[in-house]
């Protein structure tokens, strides 16, 4: 089951060596296809390395909007000898290979059922550019030019994009123009351009943008009014803090003094980053940290403290492949259980599951509101695929009427009126107690501790006093189930249910269409928050069988659903993909078909 190759519907793969500058060339190509109005995705499959290792860029174009990763390709740009054989094996029969014909391809990899299009990229660039570095870089831009001819991307569009990018660097722009034309003209002269698989501009809704999830989440933090960020660099979360700093330099400088209305602490490790977030949250700032699985492991002690002492903080987990160091540059949804119950003792946390960059933006804002309202750590569970790859999504909108939900925080006037303040007294009966900030009023003082405390905030080792507090916290977190974003349910009138979360969404949508084509309609529920909203259980109980689709080995979402709802375990069938590459529709379709056959 490959893609139905043709106009505006195909998958291509570019195989290069990392550190050679192919990333900007690939970005240019994706941008051009996006500007033509086409639904498109670009997946960077890169090594945990700076130079010399194989790297791939996968582009999927689909007029129908099916832009999940395709496991097989219609066109390959093969520029890495080391992976030649394997790359060519992934081609659909009848596909095309663009290769650098400066050197002949190894005879062993020639496939009779695909067409080889040789372009002497290195030789062309050697003739046109001075110096090894520029020749190497421009070789990448030259293949973009060749692909433009082969796929029907207008040259003027590439020129426009290059001008936008390098407008102030005249020499660089000129070099890029020339390189584009080298590849373009050679392809035009030697091959029948465009190929049967090609691009035709579409009328796209004009509210589309191309953005990655980490940038979107950083923008959410900016808009939510976060002032303190703490982090320790880790792939794939690093670009989120980079983006936050960039936005802050632009939007958070006091125009009169040039001083900053934010502070980013690059901590000595993730333990310290979590400590900074907890300290800042305790003192009344909106604080966050971007991290990944290994960071969550290190932060777990502080997460437990924040849970028990009831301190707000937002933890972005841009998941990568675990366990341990795992594969740092590959994606996974492997931290579902680790975040839901992070830290020792009885703990349960509020977790949000964005499905694309648009939701990274919205849920970042929501996470701060929830953290302050429930006085607890909140996780935003993104992943490498959402966080680091560019996605086509709707423009982000902002409602100027928005005001942060700071929760129950007593100010000086309120404290002045009170007889006495007790930190953990549940006055309203919702499990949420009022808190005070340091420095505001003498009556607001209390002692924050991770050790046993009673409802007055006093140290205790008394069983009943301890139980009273932890039971109230459990009630409080259960109450968050109605405050987290509810699931998105799409009823197609099927007996089967499909359940997923996060970045599985695109692949599941494609799978739903393909299953419907085969006469198997299925209803779909995408979960967006934990603790689960009541609708989650309703959906599961309303379907005889639900397939739980997720990107980890151990069916963590299925485990969570079994633990946290009344859904019988045997009704939940597992569909898993965990090799580190983004989920494909094929995985879902095949698993459902197999299961339906077996149980028929």
């Amino acid at each position: 089951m490959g893609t139905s190759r043709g106009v505006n519907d195909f998958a291509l793969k570019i195989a290069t060596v990392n550190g050679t500058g192919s990333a900007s060339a690939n970005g240019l190509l994706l941008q051009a296809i996006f500007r033509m109005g086409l639904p498109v995705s670009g997946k960077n499959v890169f090594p945990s390395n700076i130079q010399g290792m194989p790297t791939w860029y996968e582009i999927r174009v689909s007029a129908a909007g099916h832009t999940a990763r395709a496991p097989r390709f219609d066109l390959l740009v093969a520029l890495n000898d080391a992976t030649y054989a394997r790359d060519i094996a992934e081609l659909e029969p009848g596909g095309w290979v663009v290769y650098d014909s400066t050197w002949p391809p190894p005879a062993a990899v020639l496939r009779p059922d695909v067409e080889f299009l040789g372009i002497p990229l290195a030789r062309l660039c050697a003739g046109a550019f001075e110096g090894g570095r520029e020749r190497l870089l421009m070789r990448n831009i030259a293949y973009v030019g060749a692909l433009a001819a082969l796929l029907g991307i207008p040259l003027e569009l590439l020129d426009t994009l290059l001008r936008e990018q390098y407008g102030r660097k005249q020499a660089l722009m000129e070099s890029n123009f020339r390189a584009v034309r080298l590849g373009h003209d050679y392809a035009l002269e030697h091959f029948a351009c465009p190929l049967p698989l090609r691009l035709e501009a579409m009328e796209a809704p004009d509210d589309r943008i191309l953005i990655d999830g980490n940038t979107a989440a950083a923008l959410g933090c900016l808009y939510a009014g976060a002032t303190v960020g703490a982090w320790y660099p880790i792939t794939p979360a690093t670009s989120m803090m980079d983006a936050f700093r960039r936005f802050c330099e632009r939007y958070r400088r006091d125009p009169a003094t040039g001083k900053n209305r934010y502070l980013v602490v690059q901590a000595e490790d993730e333990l310290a980053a979590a400590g900074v977030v907890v300290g800042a949250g305790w003192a009344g700032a909106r604080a966050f940290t971007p991290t990944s699985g290994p960071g969550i492991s290190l932060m777990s002690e502080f997460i437990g403290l924040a849970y028990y002492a009831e301190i707000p903080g937002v933890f972005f987990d841009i998941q990568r492949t675990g366990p341990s160091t795992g594969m740092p540059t590959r994606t996974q949804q492997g931290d579902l259980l680790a975040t839901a119950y992070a830290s020792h003792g009885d703990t349960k946390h509020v977790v949000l599951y964005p499905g694309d960059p648009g939701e990274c933006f919205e849920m970042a804002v929501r996470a701060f509101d929830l953290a302050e309202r429930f006085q607890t750590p909140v996780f935003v569970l993104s992943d490498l695929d959402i966080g680091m790859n560019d996605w086509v999504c709707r423009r982000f909108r902002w409602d100027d009427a928005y005001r942060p939900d700071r929760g129950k925080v007593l100010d000086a006037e309120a404290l002045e009126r009170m007889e006495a303040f007790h930190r953990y007294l549940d006055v309203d009966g919702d499990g949420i107690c009022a808190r005070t900030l340091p420095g505001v009023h003498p009556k607001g003082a209390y002692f924050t501790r991770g050790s046993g405390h009673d409802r007055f905030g006093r140290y205790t080792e008394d069983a009943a006093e301890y139980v009273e507090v932890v039971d109230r916290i459990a009630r409080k977190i259960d109450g968050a189930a109605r405050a987290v974003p509810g699931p998105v349910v799409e009823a197609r009138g099927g007996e089967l249910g499909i359940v997923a979360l996060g970045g599985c969404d695109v692949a599941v949508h494609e799978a739903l269409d393909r299953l419907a084509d085969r006469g198997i309609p299925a209803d779909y529920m995408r979960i967006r928050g934990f603790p689960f909203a009541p609708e989650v259980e309703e959906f599961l109980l309303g379907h005889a069988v639900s397939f739980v689709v997720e990107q980890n080995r151990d069916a963590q979402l299925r485990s969570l659903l079994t633990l946290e709802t009344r859904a019988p375990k045997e009704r939940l069938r597992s569909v898993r993909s965990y090799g580190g590459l983004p989920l494909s529709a094929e995985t879902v379709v095949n698993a459902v078909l197999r299961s339906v056959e077996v149980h028929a």
Partner: protein
Amino acid sequence: MTTSIPKPKVRHPALPVNALGLTRRDYEGAVSTLCAGCGHDSITAALILAFWELDIPPHRVAKLSGIGCSSKTPTYFLREAHGFNAVHGRMPSIATGVRAANRDLILIGVSGDGDSLSIGLGQFCHAIRRNLRVLYVLENNGVYGLTKGQFSASADVGSRAKRGEANRMAPIDPVLLALSLGATFVARSFSGDKAQLVPILKAALSHRGFAFVDVISPCVTFNDHEGSTKSYRYTRERAREVVYADFVPPRVEITVDYGAGDAVDVRMHDGSIVRLRKTGLDYDPTDRDAAYAYVRERQRAGEVPTGLLYLSEAEPELHELEATVDAPLATLPFETLCPGSAALDALMEEYR
């Protein structure tokens, strides 16, 4: 966020009051649950005196600590201040977050040798690197008290545990460590020497940066016996005061007189003055390398040099390094933080 004047309290008319009209009692906290005679309780008493004499409104202070005997002490002073007993060894990161959020708070961090020199050594070092503005008191007894008497990383070679076994690993000396890491205020004192400790604490509270005060504080239960180098007896016999600190608050005329060449005045950022009186010859408390060399030399001679050993007011603290606005970040109005819909619409054009 506002400050407020504490409510009037019934008090004994004979008790002296400070400029805020508060007595020392107003700076106390809960009753200590530490062992009778614990050095830590003497440090608590010195802290109460230092805060009271400086006329600091208690509720403007945030008291932070980690885990251990020392970390329990913030409950014993300043009951009108927020306290935070965090996780073991991680108080410096909490302090960093609190300071990041609210630069107007006066921070005191209380730690121990297990908390700062073992489990939290990394956090201690990095708080120094940030020149985080905090009075950081290390209540140093060379032993793990709460878990009943294991050696800590500051135990000296040859030091004997209560059951008799000798420590054979080299100690981490927090003063030398702090000096080598670039700490801008480094002092050492002894819990039993209130006359020396109180002025040091006051100077530390006025320091615009990381003010490190290592206080040798004997553990009466597990480390006050023959063979201990952190006992009352050992410390009383070996402590040698090299730099006596007097603290002169801002706008107070300096009346203390010293002979020329014996004293160094250091003007603090808030206008107060720390006057360092040298008791040792050739000691320059503003020369980091000399301070380091002197402490090493005295240690080799079997002495524990005490006093304000090094002070520099020149280095920027965290908020200056990061060029943050003067108002506490936690108090900034949302309108000054959120760029709004028009800015977002414009920004979205860049992602087309």
